[in-house]
Structures are given as structure tokens and as C-alpha cells.
């Protein structure tokens, strides 16, 4: 029983972080129609950057974290401005391919700048584990869950009440009509890339404080793709709901099945779920309803 509880709590917590990453993906997809395949590599880059900042003597933790956030916003902005904007109106395949190219570049850069390839992030959260019923969970998981939930709330307020947030949703609906209102959609694209960068940085730091910095962070990014596909490419709600589903499947299913089958089975389970869901709902659980009223 305590095992089950432990798997459940950690599964949900990790799943919520997957949701964060997925939100970054969905945001860019909805506003500019680009599938950003480099989310995992961005996670890796920002986690290493956080490592470097936190390791600096003399910089307080809060300042180091702010620097990470600023760096991630800058990287997001740069990716849109320098790489994607010149490709506006190019075939969708080129846009996707170029993000794949970016992911290779980041991988190379990370290996070059941080050749040791593996490191532990300095502790950000209190060390003593927490008892939940009969389960013992280390605090990183709980903080990850709480921070993710807070960010969901913040983002939904942003999209509901902030004028730029509203225009971002409008752009997802009808880019040309946004331009007809005299609004520069390129500003909207760059805003969504910056937000995606920030989400990658936050989730990168959260995952790194749970499991250390390794190339496994790229796999975490891959798992966020499963979340996106399961939840529906264009659905924020889908990303939020599908994250914990994937996290649970991986932790609970993996936790019980690994001793019976083979190590690594936990990575297969999410895909089995996705395949089943795809048969039933091809646009994902929450793929946006198409409003067709003519």
C-alpha cells in the first residue's frame, strides 16, 4: 500500500512537470503553428545553466534563479527572432526540421560547455522527506507539484485577463484577422517562444532537482510530447490533464511491472496508452472542438 501511495504521489508530481513542458509546446504550436521539437534539449540547457549559476560563489540563490529565467526568456526570444521569423510562410516541414536542427545544436553546445555530462543540482528545497500516510516522499516532488499548479493558475489568468494573452489566443484562432486589426503577429510569436523558454527553464530546474542533471532530461522532454499527443496538440487543458496521466502510468505501472518484466518498461507504458487513446479519439483527449458554423 505504501508503495502504491508513493508511486502515485511521485507520478502525479512528475506528471505535472510534464504538463508544464507540454504547455510550452502547445503555446508555440497554437500561436505560430510550429512544432518545437527541441523542448527536451532546452530543458537540458537551462538545467546546466542553472547549475553554473547556482555553483557561483557569491550569487544568492534567488538571484541565480532570476538569471536562469532571464536567460531562458532571451533564448526563447532569440530562437523566434533569429531562426523562425526568417522562415515565416515556409512549408511546415522546414519549420519543424529547423527546430530539430536547433535541438542538435543545443546538445552539441551542452556537451562542449559542460563536458562532465552529469551533475547534481545544488539543493533548492529542504532535505527532510515528508510522510504522506504510509508513504515517504522527498520534498522535491511536492515542490514540483505545487510550483506547477501555481504556474497553471498564473497562466490561465494571463490568457484570460491580460490583453496580450487574449491576443495570443486570437492568433491561434485566426492569424490573418489579428493582422487585420493592425496587430504585429510577430510580437505574439516572440511572446509565446519566450514563455515556452521560461517554462522549459522552470521544468528543467524542477526535474534536475529531483533526478539530477543528465541527458535523461531530453527523455523528459520526449515524455512531454506524449503528453501533448495524448491531451491534444492544441489544448492547454489537455496538456494539464494528460501530464499526470502519463506520470502515473510511468511511475505506478513501471513501479509494479519492472520487477516482473524488464527495466525500461515504464517508458513503454505511456506509448501504449497513447496508441489506445488515438484509436478512440484521434485528436487527443481534449483536441479542441472545431467550431464550424457557416
Amino acid at each position, binding site marked *: 500500500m505504501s508503495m502504491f501511495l508513493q508511486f502515485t504521489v511521485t507520478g502525479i508530481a512528475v506528471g505535472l512537470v510534464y504538463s508544464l513542458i507540454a504547455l510550452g509546446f502547445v503555446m508555440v504550436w497554437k500561436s505560430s503553428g510550429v512544432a518545437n521539437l527541441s523542448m527536451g534539449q532546452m530543458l537540458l540547457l537551462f538545467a546546466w545553466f542553472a547549475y553554473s549559476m547556482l555553483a557561483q560563489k557569491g550569487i544568492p540563490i534567488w538571484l541565480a534563479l532570476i538569471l536562469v529565467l532571464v536567460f531562458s526568456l532571451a533564448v526563447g526570444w532569440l530562437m523566434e527572432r533569429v531562426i523562425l521569423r526568417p522562415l515565416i510562410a515556409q512549408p511546415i516541414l522546414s519549420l519543424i526540421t529547423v527546430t530539430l536542427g536547433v535541438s542538435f545544436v543545443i546538445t552539441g553546445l551542452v556537451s562542449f560547455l559542460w563536458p562532465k555530462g552529469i551533475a547534481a543540482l545544488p539543493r533548492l528545497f529542504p532535505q527532510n522527506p515528508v510522510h504522506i500516510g504510509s508513504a515517504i516522499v522527498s520534498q522535491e516532488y511536492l515542490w514540483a507539484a505545487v510550483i506547477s499548479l501555481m504556474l497553471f493558475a498564473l497562466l490561465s489568468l494571463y490568457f484570460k485577463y491580460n490583453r496580450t494573452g487574449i*491576443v495570443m489566443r486570437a492568433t*491561434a484562432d*485566426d*492569424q*490573418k484577422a*489579428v*493582422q487585420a*486589426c493592425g496587430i504585429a503577429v510577430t510580437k505574439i510569436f516572440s511572446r509565446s517562444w519566450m514563455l515556452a523558454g521560461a517554462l522549459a527553464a522552470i521544468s528543467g530546474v524542477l526535474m534536475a532537482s529531483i533526478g539530477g542533471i543528465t541527458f535523461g532530461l531530453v527523455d523528459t522532454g520526449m515524455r512531454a510530447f506524449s503528453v501533448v499527443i495524448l491531451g491534444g496538440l492544441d489544448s492547454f487543458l489537455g496538456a494539464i490533464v494528460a501530464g499526470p496521466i502519463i506520470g502515473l502510468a510511468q511511475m505506478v505501472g513501471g513501479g509494479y511491472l519492472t520487477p516482473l518484466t524488464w527495466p525500461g518498461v515504464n517508458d513503454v507504458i505511456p506509448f501504449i496508452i497513447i496508441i489506445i487513446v488515438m484509436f478512440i479519439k484521434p485528436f487527443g483527449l481534449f483536441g479542441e472542438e472545431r*467550431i464550424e458554423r457557416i
Partner: protein
Amino acid sequence: MLKLNNIEVAYLNIIRVLHGVSLQVEDGSIVALLGANGAGKSTTLKAISGLLHVEDGAVTDGEIEWNGAKIHKKNAEEIGKMGIIQALEGRHVFGHLTVEENLIVGSYNRKDRGAIKSDIEMVYDYFPRLKALRRKMSGYLSGGEQQMLVIGRAMVAQPKLMMLDEPSLGLAPLLVEEIYEIIRRFNTERKVSVLLVEQNVRVALGIAHYGYVMENGRVVLDGTADFLKNNEDIKEFYLGLSAVGAQKSFRAVKHYKRRKRWL
């Protein structure tokens, strides 16, 4: 005042669509741009609003002047900020946004945030029906309500020149009258110039002061609304309209599909 001097427009540098169009819109007037499908009316509007660039089109010759400044090289954002706003053909509402959120997008470029609320109230004054629907998702509105929203979204930007592309398309006659009366009121009360693209010649000339008739990328006839109403060719064109009307719905479907691909 808006002035088009002999403009030529081509898409993709090869498909020439406008062959020397000249027209002008005096401050505070309503000008109708008439003509059959494919005549180049929407292209003319897009050339003015700067949306041509979005579709790989460009003004290849001639010039467009707005209050003395040349604007044909500017983009939609700059032109919008100068006070020219276009409502696209075919009721492009933001379907997943509420009515009010649609209007907020329309007012996005307003610097003065305090004025936005009163601008939105102004739109509700002109379209009380929109006020009742303010929290409703606009994708579920009826065609007429969506058209009102598209016009309201242009109004809320506080333009000096509002360009409307076939606002009567596919609407019941009574609704068309209602919407046109509101456009006329907005023009007189707010001193906003209106450039109106229409195939429905009768209603358009009902409120316009001046009109231009286009054919194959050229202006073939122009004059005051009264002159045009009594012109024999116009009468014939106007009678021939029902045949065009039959094709229209088919084209609307095609247009809709094309839009879907954009997303």
C-alpha cells in the same frame, strides 16, 4: 483623405490582378467599391491596409496616399496605427474567444487603456445585441451576429477610415438593412470615413455618397451614388447579380477551407 493613384498589384510577382486603379475617399464620406467576384475589390482593400504582404502580394506601380503620406510600402501594423482598419471578407471572428474578448483584440493598439472600456461600450451602443452576448463564445453566434462583431471589432479600434469587405454576404435582407443603418450612423456620428466593398449594389448605394465599379482589375465607372443608381449599365449589372449570387455560396465554402489550412 485616401488617394489611390494608378496602382498595379501583383501576387507572387507574376499574377497581375490590378491594372491601374485610381480612387479616393474624402474625409467623412462613405464610398462604395462595387463589382462582380474576382474583379479585384478585396485586393484593393488589402493593398490599402497592408495585408497584401501577408499573401505575397505587392503594389508594383502607382502609389497610395493617406493624408499626404505614402503608405503603400508600409505593413498592416503601421497602417493600422495610422487609423486605417479593414474588416476581412467572410466573418473572421475569433471563434474560441468571447464577444467581449474579440473586441478587446480589436482595441489592442489603443495606448489609452482607460478609453478601451468606453470604446467597447460605444460598440455595444451601436449593436445592443452584442452586449447581450458579450460572454458568449463567438464561434457559436449566428452569421448576422458574427458580422456585427467583425464590424464592431473594426469600430473599437477608433479608425479614421474603416474598410468593410462584403458585410452583407450571406445575410437575410432585414439583417442587412439593420447593419447598414448602423454603418451609416457610425459614419455620421463619429465622422469616420467608410470604404465599402459590396456586390449588393442596392444596399451599398443606399448609404454611399460616391461609388466605383470595378471589372477585371480596373475601375470602369464611377460617380455619385445618385448617378450610379440611375445608370443603365448598373441597373443591368444589378439585375444580373442573382446569377452571381448562386456561385457565391460555393466560393464561400472554398474560401473557408483555404482558411482552415492556414491554421
